[in-house]
């Protein structure tokens, strides 16, 4: 979903004729009108549901922005300062070996899912094989030290939860990577690959890449945040209590909840810890699925790689993540 803009694409508005684009005046008018109109609309914007929706919507955006800034900065640095040859040498040439290496590399990115999407997109643009980029995309938000420490804090006295999360997430990311090699089509990432630019100077490339990736990923982040806020405002959490219990239904219920809640991977362990009516395996599924597939991520991935990419990766990832959590949960928890 994108907003249809009456304003032509940039290509039709070359900068030699800036007057052809009305985007800036429209933007300025919108923001000024909003600032001026606030007292007038204050009364009818006072509905409790709207207030609550807006709080969650703004909260998700505000929480995600620093990570998005980190992500687009790294993306810009890769585009401007890391030659493709270096990236190519960093990964094994055989894709089957590149996948586990990429999964392990996810450990090094301290952040949550909003940062990893632009980085994975940039890796593809710089010639990294999509199978490895997908694996990195899925593993980085789930297995980095910040998230693992948060998990340990949320489940005091249960270090096996941290081990289970790390194992199940790495396993799921690798399996999806292998499935990409088997069934995926590298052309599905063409949208990310077209996204190369050369500004002549390295600083120019860095700045323009970061700017482009921020606007792009930011727009799709907003779709995801709005979806998650709507679901949270409209669906009472008590619906879950009716599902409740242990067993396969509980695992699927929490995996589904992870998709619709779209909680940052650094916070999901605390929510999982509070869902005490569910089994530990179900809560593990919540923490394995959430950083890999949720409404916010689906929007971000579709925006970065294209719809066909997401149509392939999101459902497969959901099934693989649930299976991986169930397996690891049965063995470790």
């Amino acid at each position, binding site marked *: 979903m994108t907003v249809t803009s009456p304003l032509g694409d940039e290509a039709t508005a070359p900068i030699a004729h800036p007057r052809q684009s009305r985007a800036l005046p429209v933007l300025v008018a919108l923001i000024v009108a909003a600032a001026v109109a606030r007292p007038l609309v204050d009364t009818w914007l006072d509905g409790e549901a709207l207030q609550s929706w807006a709080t969650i919507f703004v909260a998700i955006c505000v929480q995600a922005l620093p990570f998005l800034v980190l992500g687009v900065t790294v993306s810009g640095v890769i585009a401007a300062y890391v030659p493709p040859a270096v990236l190519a040498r960093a990964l094994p040439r055989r894709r089957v070996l590149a996948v586990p290496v990429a999964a392990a590399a996810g450990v090094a990115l301290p952040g949550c899912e909003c940062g990893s999407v632009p980085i994975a997109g940039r890796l593809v643009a710089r010639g990294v094989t999509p199978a490895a980029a997908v694996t990195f995309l899925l593993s980085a938000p789930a297995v980095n030290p910040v998230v693992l420490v948060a998990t340990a804090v949320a489940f005091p006295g249960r270090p096996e939860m941290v081990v289970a999360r790390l194992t199940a997430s790495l396993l799921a990311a690798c399996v999806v990577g292998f499935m990409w090699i088997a069934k995926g089509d590298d052309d599905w990432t063409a949208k990310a690959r077209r996204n190369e630019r050369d500004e002549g100077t390295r600083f120019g490339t860095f700045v323009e890449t970061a700017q482009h990736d921020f*606007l792009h990923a930011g727009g799709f982040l907003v779709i995801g945040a709005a979806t998650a806020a709507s679901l949270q405002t409209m669906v009472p959490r008590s619906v879950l209590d009716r599902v409740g219990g242990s067993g396969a239904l509980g695992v699927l219920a929490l995996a589904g909840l992870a998709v619709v809640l779209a909680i940052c991977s650094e916070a999901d362990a605390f929510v999982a810890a509070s869902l005490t009516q569910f089994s530990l395996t179900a809560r593990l599924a919540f923490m394995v699925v959430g950083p890999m597939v949720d409404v916010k991520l689906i929007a971000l991935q579709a925006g970065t790689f294209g719809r066909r990419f997401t149509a392939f990766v999101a459902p497969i990832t959901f099934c693989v993540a649930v299976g991986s959590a169930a397996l690891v949960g049965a063995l470790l928890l």
Partner: protein
Amino acid sequence: MSREAGATLTGVVGVLLARLAIGGTFRQYVRPGMGPWLAVAGILLALLGAVVLWRHRRGEHDHSAHGHTGERAAWLLVAPVLTLLLIAPGALGSFSLDRTGSAVSVRSGGGVYAKLDAASGPHEMSLLEFDQRAYEGTEGASFNGATVRLVGFVAPAKADGFLVARYSIACCAADALAATAHIVGWDGPVPARDTWVEVEGTFVPGDAANPRLVTSSVTPIPEPNDPYE
């Protein structure tokens, strides 16, 4: 979206983010510890927008990079900007109580609290700690009959009395979990919903969903600087 508009929007988002961070309003949405990161991110975005605008004015740009679709998605970034300017939503209140996870539970782990001194007091504690002591598995024995002081907002209770509630957040308001106390035995006026109050009383065990507090005083207070625990 044109280059100029995109750079301006980036700058506006950055300035708003930095303003939230420096003004302190960000505490209504995310953890207090996020403040410095929000400020840094906001300043970086503002700088990024400024640099791109400056480069645009000087005509520095790779024209071949044009022509891909999807930048229209950037318009969506106007939505949170307008939401902040128009609605300026406050912290979550009683409306969301049955929409977030309720009853923070420590039954899965957590330490054992030391007994309170019943002679001194009232003992100030968070609503989360109140619930944790109540749910500890010892029927709230650690309260030892001592008077406690809690701060939260007023919410309606299903039975008699009312609730005092406060959210804990781990990252942002989207992951808020509520801790509540059921106020019983209070004969005075009941404050309006979502009023912030300071209450004093003693814990009584019971099988109610929310731990009970036999309350001796209810004092309305302004909303705390950090509305979450």
